[in-house]
């Protein structure tokens, strides 16, 4: 029955999207790109096929949340890289490099550092202690209900803000590249996301992410190398031409004003490194591999893929300075140096057109759409798992819910998240959401990361410490972003920001650590003593994972 339902929903979507493809040329102002639509439909077809295949293999809670632990390290490495390489990376970072030069590349460096750190101090322990969500790890020896509820609240906050940013970006990009209405694009993303997650669970979500990661890395490499070939594969030639035509000249080849303020620079770097290490949909990927060996391998593969892709992005951004920035056909009204057609996020797409014509542009547009779909699906699954596994099954039902009940709640939750994402995506169409990326990483770095790291490494952490530390991180990160220029001045229209820096992590992350420590050491209750005593056994499990190798159930206290 599930299969038939899936097929019929799939047919509906295909009909709707194909209908759009024909209707599209009539929408004013934008032209539909036929190769783009054809390739996108091919991607949707393949991913719905994957979902159908995955749905037949998804029966237990372990299948649903963690693909039955059957993803290999290499596959998981592609999926993790895919999660991090969102449309924001492809379009946003390349356009930052196009506009600001080297400063844009610094974002790549900040993102990639997170993965060695995850590997060295987190990957194996996560795999050995957790099953489906990172709250499994934080609540391992602590009181389930309060710790999981706090973790779920901060996970959901991160997921929802991240989803809004992706949805709004998706709507704008798809509107431009495919010539369809903004709201239709947002609804299409929402519907496909819900189909992947509810029917195919983690297995479908992972394979959609892998397919997309391969396409994205392949497409990015083709664009970068074709562009680089125009400069005889000489970086010096490319750089000197870029310097000659860019309005900032030689300054684009060195770090500039964006990181000039030391406090903001360190805060941004902290937020990006430890925020990435606290993103629920990234952490969840470490539960899809069978053991600690594979979880190590996934971090290694992910780091390599991302590093390679960032080098390609660097070439794309810099080549676009020369090949797009001097070509009047990519500017509104043909005025070089004026507004780019389609807005500031488009240099990589225009570059694809410049070096590979409509066909390559179509391919890259389809890849951009696929990227958004894959990333929002991972996010939706992480959010739905926080609701079903942490809040419903453990905090409310205290572990008495059956697997089928838990899965049903999760599917309902992902439908709810899908609707919420579509509604918020449409509501925020016209807003400047630049602050959201800083906010999500800031929250993840402050609310998730400190509690997670303390729960794994510090014997003294108690329930009170985990809850208050997590809440302190969440609330302070939120409050600081609201008081910063991006929200207080730009969104709320006040004259001056209350908080002078853009990024919260430098302040909110240490605060979370401090509160977690303080609340734990001041906790003299009997349960706190029991929790401290339980650390020794947890630590042996974390070090060896023997309970898995011996086939014993995970000890839950």
């Amino acid at each position: 029955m599930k299969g038939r339902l899936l097929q019929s929903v799939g047919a509906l979507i295909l009909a709707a999207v194909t209908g759009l493809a024909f209707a599209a040329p009539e929408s004013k102002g934008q032209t539909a790109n036929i190769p783009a639509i054809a390739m996108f439909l091919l991607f949707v077809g393949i991913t719905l096929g994957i979902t159908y295949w995955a749905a037949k293999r998804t029966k237990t809670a372990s299948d649903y949340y963690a693909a039955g632990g059957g993803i290999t390290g290499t596959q998981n490495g592609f999926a993790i890289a895919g999660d991090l390489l969102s449309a924001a990376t492809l379009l946003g970072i390349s356009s930052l490099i196009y506009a600001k030069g080297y400063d844009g590349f610094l974002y790549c460096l900040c993102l990639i550092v997170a993965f060695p750190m995850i590997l060295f101090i987190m990957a194996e322990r996560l795999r050995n202690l957790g099953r489906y969500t990172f709250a499994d790890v934080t609540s391992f020896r602590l009181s389930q209900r309060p710790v999981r509820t706090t973790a779920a609240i901060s996970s959901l906050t991160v997921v929802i803000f991240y989803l809004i940013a992706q949805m709004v970006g998706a709507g704008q990009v798809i509107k431009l590249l495919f010539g369809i209405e903004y709201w239709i694009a947002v609804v299409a993303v929402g519907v496909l996301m819900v189909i992947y997650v509810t029917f195919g669970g983690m297995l479908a979500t992972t394979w959609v992410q892998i397919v997309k990661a391969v396409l994205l890395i392949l497409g990015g490499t083709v664009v970068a190398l074709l562009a680089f070939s125009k400069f005889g594969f000489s970086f010096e030639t490319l750089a000197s031409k870029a310097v000659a035509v860019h309005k900032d000249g030689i300054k684009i080849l060195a770090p500039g004003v964006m990181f000039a303020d030391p406090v903001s620079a360190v805060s941004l770097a902290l937020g990006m490194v430890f925020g990435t290490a606290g993103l629920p949909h990234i952490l969840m990927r470490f539960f899809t591999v069978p053991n600690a060996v594979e979880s190590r391998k996934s971090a290694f593969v992910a780091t390599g893929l991302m590093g390679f892709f960032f080098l390609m992005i660097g070439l794309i951004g810099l080549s676009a300075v020369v090949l797009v920035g001097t070509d009047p056909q990519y500017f509104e009204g043909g005025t070089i140096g004026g507004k780019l057609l389609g807005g500031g996020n488009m240099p990589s797409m225009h570059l694809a057109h410049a070096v590979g014509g409509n066909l390559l542009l179509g391919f890259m547009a389809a890849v951009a759409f696929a990227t958004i779909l894959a990333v929002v699906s991972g996010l939706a699954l992480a959010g739905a798992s926080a609701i079903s596994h942490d809040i419903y099954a453990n905090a409310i039902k205290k572990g008495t819910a059956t697997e089928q009940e838990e899965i049903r709640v999760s599917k309902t939750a992902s439908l709810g998240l899908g609707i919420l994402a579509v509604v918020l995506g449409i509501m925020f169409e016209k807003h400047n959401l630049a602050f959201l990326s800083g906010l999500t990483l800031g929250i993840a770095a402050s609310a998730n990361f400190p509690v997670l790291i303390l729960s794994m490494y510090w014997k003294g952490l108690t329930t009170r410490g985990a809850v208050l530390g997590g809440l302190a991180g969440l609330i302070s990160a939120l409050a600081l972003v609201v008081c910063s220029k991006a929200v207080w001045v730009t969104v709320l229209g006040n004259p001056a920001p209350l908080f002078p820096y853009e990024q919260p992590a430098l302040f909110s992350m240490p605060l979370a650590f401090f509160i977690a420590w303080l609340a734990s050491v001041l906790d003299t209750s009997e349960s706190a003593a029991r929790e401290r005593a339980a650390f020794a056994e947890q630590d042996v499990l974390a070090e060896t994972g023997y309970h898995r190798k011996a086939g014993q159930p995970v000890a839950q206290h």
Partner: protein
Amino acid sequence: MSTDTTYGRIVNHPRYAELVGRRKRLAWLLAGCTLGVFFSFVLIIAFSPSILATPVSASGVTTIAVPIGVAMIAYFWILTGIYVRRASRDFDGLTDQIIREALK
């Protein structure tokens, strides 16, 4: 909480402390190498970015910031490779041995 006998045997295994100690040293050493290099770079950008604007050669425009950026990406990846290799070689066999003997 009942005392798990397997747990007790693992903790008291003569080589358990060695496993934990060696892995801890390797992990924190590599984490230090990662964060040390990265935050030194961030601090140079914050306080003295002009250092990075030095050209690689007198005749060209390419600055040392470019090869340093590329080298950092390679460096982080190599560090993850070192950890994966060392962990597979030194820790997995040892872990299996400890578990096997503790379960006997």
